[in-house]
């Protein structure tokens, strides 16, 4: 499922809303999560999962082709941990049941 399909499904389930409103709602939700991560804040959506930012310290790396040492500067990587309820649903005996 891609974002436009997500929007289409939500429009179908909420016939009283305009498609452009649903587009803004979906956009706002992902924008809020992204903005929080860019502020180094954690986003915790109980049952669904939690987004956080992990710091990768600067290190000396090596160019695998030449063996030359290179400086790799500090980086920040977004991380997602699956929520407990979702992890359990993924592993139900009959995952295709609603």
């Amino acid at each position, binding site marked *: *499922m891609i974002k436009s399909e997500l929007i289409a499904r939500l429009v179908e389930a909420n016939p009283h809303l305009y498609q452009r*409103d649903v587009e803004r*709602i979906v956009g706002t*939700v992902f924008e809020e999560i992204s903005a929080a991560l860019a502020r*180094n804040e954690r*986003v915790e959506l*109980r049952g669904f999962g939690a987004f956080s930012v992990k710091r990768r310290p600067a290190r000396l790396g090596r160019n695998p082709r030449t063996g030359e040492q290179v400086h790799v500067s500090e980086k920040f990587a977004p991380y997602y941990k699956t929520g407990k309820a979702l992890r359990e649903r*993924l592993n139900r005996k009959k995952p*295709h049941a609603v």
Partner: protein
Amino acid sequence: MANRTVTRADLAEAVYQEVGLSRNESADLVEAILSEISGSLVSGENVKISSFGSFLVRDKGRRIGRNPKTGEEVSIEPRRVLSFRASQVLKDRINSSLTGGS
């Protein structure tokens, strides 16, 4: 940096401010988004949100693990796990904001 945690209530508030639905309906829509994504993943379908990232369902096979405390061998059964791959746009945004350079 005060590291607060953003929750469903914050997402609902943003939708309320941005779109002008009622607070209740804003919260319902946030829930509906999470529920559609979860449903897709549970049915085995990956979810890709452009400029945010992809949620991928992966099958892990059986393997023999070890209880690190007792050293005892245990069989880890096949299971499905999620991995999240952030889009380049999101990675760049986080890095330019937190490292102070782009």
